[in-house]
C-alpha cells in the first residue's frame, strides 16, 4: 500500500501474462496509451468495460482570480479530460479499502 506503480510494472505484467519480450511488452503498453490518447484527441469517448470511461469535456471561459494579488484574470476556454470509474472499479477500491481499515467497513447500523 502507498506504492507508486509505473509503466515498468505494467509492462512486466504484460510480459508475465503473454510471454512477449520485455521490450515488446513495453511497446504494446505505449501503443495502448497512444491509441486511447488519439481517440480522445479526436473527441471520442473511450469506454473500457469494467474499468471506466475517459471523455473530453469542453470548458467555457470564466473569470478566475490570482489568489495572491486578488486580480481578476480570464480563464480561457479549454478542454479537460474526465475519467469516470465504472461501478465495478469503485466497488473493488471500496472493498480493498475496508479490508485494510476494518474500522471503516460499512456497517448497517448507525
Amino acid at each position, binding site marked *: *500500500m*502507498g*506504492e*507508486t*506503480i*509505473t*509503466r515498468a*510494472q*505494467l509492462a512486466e*505484467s*504484460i510480459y508475465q*501474462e*503473454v510471454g*512477449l519480450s520485455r521490450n515488446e*511488452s513495453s511497446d*504494446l*503498453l505505449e*501503443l*495502448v*496509451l497512444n*491509441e*486511447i*490518447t488519439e*481517440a*480522445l*484527441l479526436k473527441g*471520442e*469517448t*473511450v*469506454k*473500457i*468495460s*469494467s*474499468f*471506466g470511461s*475517459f471523455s*473530453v469535456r469542453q470548458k467555457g471561459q470564466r473569470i478566475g482570480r490570482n489568489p495572491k494579488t486578488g486580480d481578476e484574470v480570464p480563464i480561457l476556454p*479549454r*478542454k*479537460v*479530460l474526465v*475519467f469516470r*470509474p465504472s461501478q465495478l*472499479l*469503485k466497488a*473493488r*477500491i*471500496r*472493498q*480493498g*479499502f*475496508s479490508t*485494510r*481499515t476494518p474500522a*471503516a*467497513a*460499512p*456497517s448497517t447500523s*448507525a
Partner: protein
Amino acid sequence: MTKSELIAQIATRNPHLYQRDVERIVTSIFDEISKALSRGDRVELRGFGAFSVKHRDSRVGRNPRTGASVAVAEKAVPYFKTGKQLRDTMNG
C-alpha cells in the same frame, strides 16, 4: 471507442500477434491498474496521467426523495489526474 475496438485497432497494427493475445494484453493492463488501486497504490503513467485513490470521510447524507438523513460510511474512491503532456496536447 470501446475496449473491443481498442483491441481490434491494436491487433490490426500488430499482424504478428493473435487477437486473443492482444485481448489478454489490454485486459491485463487495466486489471493491473485496478489491482494496484484496490491495494491503495497509485499508478503513474507519465505524459498520460495518474490514477490514485482518494479518501472520503464518513458523512451524513440525505435521501433526496424523502429528505431522511442517512449515514454514509467512510470510503475510498478512484481518481484520475490528466498528465501535463496530454493536457497540453488537448489544448495545443
